[in-house]
């Protein structure tokens, strides 16, 4: 149908792009992760597994990874809990207001991540909006300290930021549930609640899995929210990678952690796609 030359011209740019900006950097990272740093702070190109051994042996990396996964899991859970009812309402009951409400969900995505993170800082801080209010109404005497610079602040901020990402695939899945199936279910005697659990929810599982994956993976790799709002107890794995590539100047160890994360995330994506496929019927 298309000539060879045409196909080459069309496919070349993305191939070059992927090679230069993805494959080669990953390859470099892969190489770095097997190299080491000399005491004089130069990178020595001697192949060894020392970085990986250090990762497995030192508890701090495991603890940080587990904490990061814990934070990501909570963000995922809260995002789903917020996004699903919203998507369900919009898809089934919003009627003529559907488009407007949809836009209202999307608009926060246009606001810079940094601005939103700072906004939470001014809300949650000791002199922030929330503490000032709580003291004004005499619910507390002193500012609540746990609000800012804590895992709580990180989870809250990331949930705020990633809920639209969970919302979009769930909404798309619910929009694809044929309405005559809902009618058929009612026709066969199922109450609205039975219809939801037996028909609507199962058919929206691909969207839920996709939304959960978005929220989890994006939170897991986040470093700005913990940097700005996490404090010492809210440090996540990406903050360690950032410092290893920066002040600590240990690129090989940073590369090893990054690769470990990459393997983790890719296997997660693989499994979520399996689940999505199993539950798609079209």
């Amino acid at each position, binding site marked *: 149908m298309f000539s060879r030359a045409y196909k080459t011209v069309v496919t070349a740019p993305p191939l070059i792009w992927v090679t230069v900006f993805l494959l080669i950097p990953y390859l470099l990272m892969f190489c770095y992760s097997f190299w080491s740093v000399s005491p004089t702070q130069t990178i020595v190109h001697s192949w060894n597994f020392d970085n990986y051994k250090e990762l497995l042996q030192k508890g701090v990396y495991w603890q940080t990874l587990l904490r990061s996964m814990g934070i990501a899991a909570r963000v995922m859970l809260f995002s789903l809990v917020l996004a699903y009812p919203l998507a369900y309402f919009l898809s089934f009951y919003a009627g003529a207001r559907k488009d407007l409400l949809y836009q209202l969900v999307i608009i926060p995505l246009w606001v810079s991540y940094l601005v939103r993170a700072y906004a939470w800082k001014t809300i949650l801080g000791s002199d922030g909006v929330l503490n000032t209010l709580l003291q004004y109404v005499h619910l507390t005497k002193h500012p609540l300290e746990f609000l800012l610079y804590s895992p709580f602040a990180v989870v809250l901020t990331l949930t705020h930021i990633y809920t639209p990402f969970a919302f979009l695939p769930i909404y798309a899945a619910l929009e694809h549930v*044929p309405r*005559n*199936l809902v*009618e*058929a*279910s*009612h*026709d*066969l*005697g*199922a*109450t609205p609640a*039975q219809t939801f659990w*037996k*028909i609507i929810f*199962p*058919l929206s599982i691909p969207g839920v899995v996709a939304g959960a994956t978005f929220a989890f993976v994006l939170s897991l790799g986040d470093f700005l929210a913990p940097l700005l709002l996490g404090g010492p107890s809210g440090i996540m794995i990406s903050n360690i990678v950032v410092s290893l590539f920066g002040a600590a100047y240990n690129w090989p160890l940073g590369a090893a952690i990054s690769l470990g994360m990459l393997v983790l995330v890719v296997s997660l994506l693989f499994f979520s796609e399996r689940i999505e496929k199993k*539950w798609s*019927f*079209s």
Partner: protein
Amino acid sequence: MSATTRAHNPAEHPSSDKSILLSIRNVAKTFGRNVVLRDISLEIAEGEFLTILGESGSGKTTLLRIIAGFEHATSGELWMGAERLDQQPPYRRKVNTVFQHYALFPHLTVEENVAYGLRVAKRPEAEITQRVAEALDKVKMTSHAKAKPSQISGGQQQRVALARALVNRPKMLLLDEPLSALDANLRRQMQVELKALQREVGIAFVFVTHDQEEAMVMSDRIALLRSGELEQVATPREIYGRPATAYVAQFIGHTNLLSGEVRGGVVRCGNLSWAITLPDGPVLFSLRPEHLHLSSGAESPGTVRVRGCVVHQAFHGATELIRVDCGAGMILTARTASESRLQQDVELQFRAEDAVPVKQSAERR
């Protein structure tokens, strides 16, 4: 046709030996300013096969959806026995629907689809297993029990949809153009099977279609809907043989419409005239093509003859339809035995009683 004249028509009501299952009383439906149904009154008997026939946009699907409970009538009532049906949500009505595109649940197997109604009603598992097996057997789908809907053909999905509805032993089954997605051969086969199944289970079927042939083949009674109003409710034979209006005559089968004038017991239609017992005034007749014959030559009382020339000849297999120009702007269509050689000039004849007076259909929309 006004409500008063309809009330005199005995076919509006099912034959008296059967008890009335559903009574539709003065149902109307408007969507915004769009009137979809106006003043529909209809009674459906136990075990009856009633077809709601109409063109697309006539409101037939809306009427079915009102019975099922997916739409609310703007005014009017539905009664099932002593129970007011239109105030019940769909899941409380003892009515099941076979949807146009079957609406099988894609994530459930054939068996689970059929079991759905019994499961949500929390029937004992042993009873469910038995009834599902019976229902699948009835529609010959036992061998596909474990298949997903996407793995079976359209005709098979149709059967599963039937089994899924019938397994609940509804008082009435609603069918929304269930055969329209099937190809012609399979559709004819399903018409026969569906009718046989209906006789076997003895449940009232309310069948919606736009296909007049399908309606004639399957129904005990046909309710012909036009632009949201009932044009005629009658048995297939009656609606074909004694159409109430010009619209009915034209919608069901082929017909010739002759408009004429009665004066002093004689009607004149163009060049034709015959004796008739109708009051003076304008009149409209429906004359079926099969009642027009080529003249045999022998004169017989009560026949009307007309000469004309053949302008068109359409071969239909055993019969053919010829169009004959009889002068004075009158072109008649006659159904004759297939004949390859037909002379240009012919004489047609029909019995005067076969010309059925029909009402002029009111202009709507």
